[in-house]
């Protein structure tokens, strides 16, 4: 126990900062269209990200804000990701929590912020309706695309309106 506690302490968090630093460099030098991510002013382990809804989905042209929090043992544990923008989606609950396997037990240390955001973006267009957090949305997705789209737009808020 003592051994691992030491390992997790100073050494580990230094690595988190290092790794996040590296990812930030990567994101700034090679930006991916449709996603942005930037760390908090004071805290390198808390980031704010945005994703743009993919074309030809109910989320087209909508921008969603997310928060990402990195544990001291990142990348050996997934970041905690929440939707800050209210979103109507089968795999997101009303407080913004996301059900996505790569953010849970299928997390791999080879993933990074960009791959997480890209997975979330593709989840918008391809929800996993077999294990929904929002049952109504899962049902409407196939049954009534028009009503679905209406509910998506009704729930959505522009990022600028959020901070107010």
């Amino acid at each position, binding site marked *: 126990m003592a051994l691992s506690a030491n*390992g997790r302490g100073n050494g580990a968090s230094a690595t988190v900062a290092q790794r996040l630093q590296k990812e930030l460099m990567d994101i700034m030098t090679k930006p991916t269209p449709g996603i942005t991510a930037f760390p908090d002013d004071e805290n390198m382990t808390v980031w704010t990200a945005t994703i743009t809804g993919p074309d030809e989905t109910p989320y087209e042209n909508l921008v969603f804000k997310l928060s990402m929090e990195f544990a001291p043992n990142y990348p*050996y544990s997934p970041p905690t990701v929440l939707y800050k923008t209210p979103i109507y989606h089968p795999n997101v609950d009303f407080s913004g929590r996301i059900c996505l396997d790569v953010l849970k037990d299928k997390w791999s240390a080879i993933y990074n912020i960009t791959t997480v955001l890209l997975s979330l973006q593709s989840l918008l267009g391809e929800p996993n309706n077999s294990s929904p957090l929002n049952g109504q949305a899962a049902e409407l997705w196939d049954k009534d695309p028009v009503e679905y789209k209406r509910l998506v737009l009704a729930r959505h808020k522009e990022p600028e309106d959020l901070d107010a």
Partner: protein
Amino acid sequence: MADPAAMPSDEEYAYLQKLSGEYQPEATGPLVGERQSSATITTQYATADPIYRVKTAALPAKYAYFRTCRGDGHCGWRAIAFTYFEALLRVGDVSKLEDEEARLNSLGNLLDHIGYSRDLWIDFAEEAFELLHKLARSLRHMDGQAADILLQTFNDMNASMAIITYVKLLASAWVQTHADDFVHFIDNGDVRGYCANNIEPTMCEADNIGVAALAEALIKPAGFGLEVWYLDRSPGEEINRSFHSEPTDHHHRPIPGAPMLRLLYRPGHYDILYKAGDVPQVQHQPALRQQPLHVALANYTDDFVPTATSVADVMNMIPGMYPTGVGLGQRWPSLSYDFSPSPASHTQVTPIQPYAPAPTPVTPVSTAHLDFVTPIHPNNASQYNPPSHHSIHLDQPPVTLPIHPPPPPPVSLERSAPMTVERGGPFRSSMYELEPGFGSSMQVQPFQTSIFRNSHFNTAHFRNPDFMPEQWLPDGEYSTGNKGRHKSHSS
């Protein structure tokens, strides 16, 4: 429907389900423990199911030591990675470490090819290279720290996780680039999906495919072998081998004496297993150094228990006692050094060689032979010098044995007794003695030609039970002709 208060609502039920799904017993203990006697395992199972008792009771005789790995869901990967580095130390050759670094570096192409971002995996790989550098530095300075460095590195959560992640990525990349070899073991045949779900995730235990992939990607190219021994409740008297990868060279020929990595698998958990011979006896057990003769005799007395019935054999094993028809020089070809009457001078002789190559033919010797009537030519007797580190000969002037013929049989019986007791003897090993197993990899004899390799003169084959010497066959010419033709067809 039951009372709603008693029945958890769907939401509560989902919550409880989530809790139970996420529950993990708290893993304790060091990430990788110290090597310890495997009798500990026997003790752990002393009150368990009889099958476990029988199997674990038989364990220490074959596998003298084991090392625990923390059961935190990484133990299989950790055990393989650790034993891989440990086997490199067992080889004890700096250039081997350098070769491995170069090889692992070249495996980077594999990772790139699979589509992993080099920026990401290089962090994990560098932790492994860093460890190789540290071990090489320690070996170069001969400071004896290498084993401790290895253990400390693997007990550092961060370094340990990086190395584990690295070997998992190697395994995944190997499976994906050798999909044909693995696709039949994957249910839906989706190799990429399988790797993403069963090898790459941070929390996933090594399964058979992962172990097999690492055996191919990491262990076999290093010239090592891998065995997994399975301890479960299946009927049987010993643990059984559930996975085996023979150490072979790149021509798929077995490498005799190559390090073998051994894992002990109990359902859901891996530990590391060692045979007594896998373990360098020097650094951690200074007590054993005091009695090196014990080691020297161990080869010699392997299959001999000094009971009354085997006394005749014992006498037979004492060099010079029964030169049974064969010339002495032939029987003891390696004992060419001169006898010196001063026992002190013998401490200079390293007691390694003489016994191994000279097995005594066990001729049925009745007690009647104990009267020492067998004539010994004086010149033979003076030429012959008993192996001086044999305590029985140092007890009394060795020359007297052949020269004063009939010592009464009872005396010889008494004389056989100290042989078992006085193993310590006056003989101490040199401090410059190499660790057992040192350079075992070098037995591969890099300069041998393919002709010599297949020759029956090649002593390396003594350890290979399946060895077939190359023979001339009357049909040989035809078969080579066929081969040549076949080749030209296929190319």
